């Protein structure tokens, strides 16, 4: 595709895919939460599950498809490594018995260094990998990764990672957003029971008189913000400790001066 016209068409097609995906996700959430179809919470026989599942999955697929085409090979090559880091760090933390998950460090790093589009693909495919390795439960939650990646990338673009004290704030905000977005899936697809501990907490909120959706939202708000706060803080510390040579390799990080506001080294002139 050396000539300009097809490139432009492809670019606008990609934007269209991402936009359509985003609209579907937002519409799904709005329909389920704001419009609150009558009687939805009363039995398991409404179509809320279908709508939640279809809306989020189709939205995630469109966003992933639109995002991946924008990425150059060097960025694509980064994604498997980042997903492996997600999973291995998550397991390391579990082995050490730390009270957090930290299973999205790779996704946040990619979003910060290579931009939100790369982060979106990393996050969504990380959940697909989980599905392919015999636990399909995370699959419907893929769209939550989109939120994390977009917020992390945006935070990086506006300079959050240039200051030590800002990443925790961005992490907190991201965690709240992630909790809110994942709640309808927990509620309408899994009936609040995505795991033992979380299910018990949902039950406790319901016993206090909350609706199912409100209970899953509150349950998410108990764990996600803390986890993302620590994730963003760790990423901030890692980036600050990196030699600048590593960061120069990433056009997004270079262009938006993600980590430092220090002036660029002047181009050298050959001796003699």
């Amino acid at each position: 595709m050396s000539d300009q016209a097809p490139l432009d068409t492809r670019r606008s097609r990609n934007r269209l895919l991402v936009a359509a995906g985003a609209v579907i996700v937002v519409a799904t959430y709005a329909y389920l939460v704001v419009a609150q179809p009558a009687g939805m919470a009363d039995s398991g026989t409404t179509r809320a599950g279908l709508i939640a599942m279809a809306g989020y999955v189709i939205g995630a697929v469109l966003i992933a498809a639109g995002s991946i085409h924008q990425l150059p090979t060097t960025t694509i090559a980064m994604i498997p490594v980042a997903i492996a880091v997600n999973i291995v760090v998550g397991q390391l933390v579990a082995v050490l018995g730390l009270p957090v998950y930290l299973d999205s460090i790779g996704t946040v790093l990619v979003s910060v260094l290579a931009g939100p589009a790369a982060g979106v693909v990393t996050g969504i495919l990380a959940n697909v990998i989980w599905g392919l390795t015999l636990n399909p439960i995370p699959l419907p939650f893929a769209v939550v990764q989109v939120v994390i990646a977009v917020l992390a990338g945006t935070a990086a673009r506006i300079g959050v990672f240039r200051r030590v004290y800002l990443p925790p704030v961005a992490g907190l905000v991201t965690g709240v957003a992630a909790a809110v977005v994942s709640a309808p899936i927990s509620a309408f697809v899994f009936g609040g029971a995505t795991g033992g501990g979380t299910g018990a907490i949902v039950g406790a909120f319901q016993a206090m008189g909350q609706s199912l959706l409100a209970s899953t939202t509150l349950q998410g708000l108990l764990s996600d913000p803390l986890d993302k706060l620590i994730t963003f803080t760790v990423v901030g510390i890692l980036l600050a400790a990196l030699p600048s040579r590593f960061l120069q390799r990433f056009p997004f990080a270079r262009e938006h001066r993600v980590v430092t506001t220090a002036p660029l080294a002047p181009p050298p002139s050959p001796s003699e």
Partner: protein
Amino acid sequence: MIQLADVSYAYPDSGRFVLEHVDLRIEPGTITGVVGASGAGKTTLAKILSGFIPHVDGGQLSGSVVIGGRDLSGLPLAACVSQVGLVIQNPFNQISGARYTVRGELAFGMENLGTPRDEMASRVAEVAGLLRITDLLDRSPYELSGGQQQLVAIASMLVLRTPVLVMDEPTSQLDPVGTRMVFGVLSRLRGAGTTIVVFEHKPELLHAHADRLHVLAGRRIAASGSPGEILSDPRTDQWGVSATRYTRAARLAREQGLVPAEAPLPVSFEQAAAFFGWSARTRPPSPEDAR
């Protein structure tokens, strides 16, 4: 033919040159060795020769890099990689993981370039036979030893049949037997017309297989010559290039006045046998003996 004229390069945002005023001429159908200390810029030069600098890494490149009559900076990356195959240093990262068997891994590059199916199968079989990895074809590339992975990494570039091959330390994880086999294969490829540039520091092998050596030191080409000349040069220590024990012993013998100062120093086992064989009989070796 490959020609680098007055090439200087600085990585983006780094503020300093890693290579300066590099001039290099490489004849087609030869094996050229590039030697130098760790950190002398060998990997950078390998990327310049294959077009990855400046196409992928960016940075500031001046001077011209001409391969087969065309300037690489004017060619798109796809055209560069079809001319020059690059084998990177770490085989673990050369393996894409996009396929689940060695056979699939070897075919991956050809699939990307649209090679017909029958042709792919025959090239895989041919290269696997050459590098003696036929019995590994149905295994996963990730369950192999480092040395086996290195052979797979080399094979994955050989199947693409680029006219030029640039190899960054292609035998770092191989034992002596594997190393000799790889150099044997490179000699065969040269015989078939492939131009090979190898960044390597095993002096005995370079001496046995390379047509010409270039020394990278102090950000430029510090010396060029035949392997015999370069590896027996008194400046090898200063360049960070290792000399064989034969050369070191012979140099010591010369310093102690046991052999005439003009006697050329041996590099290989055979030359050393001749050198010390003669010296033991008190007849100084003539220049022809050491060649």
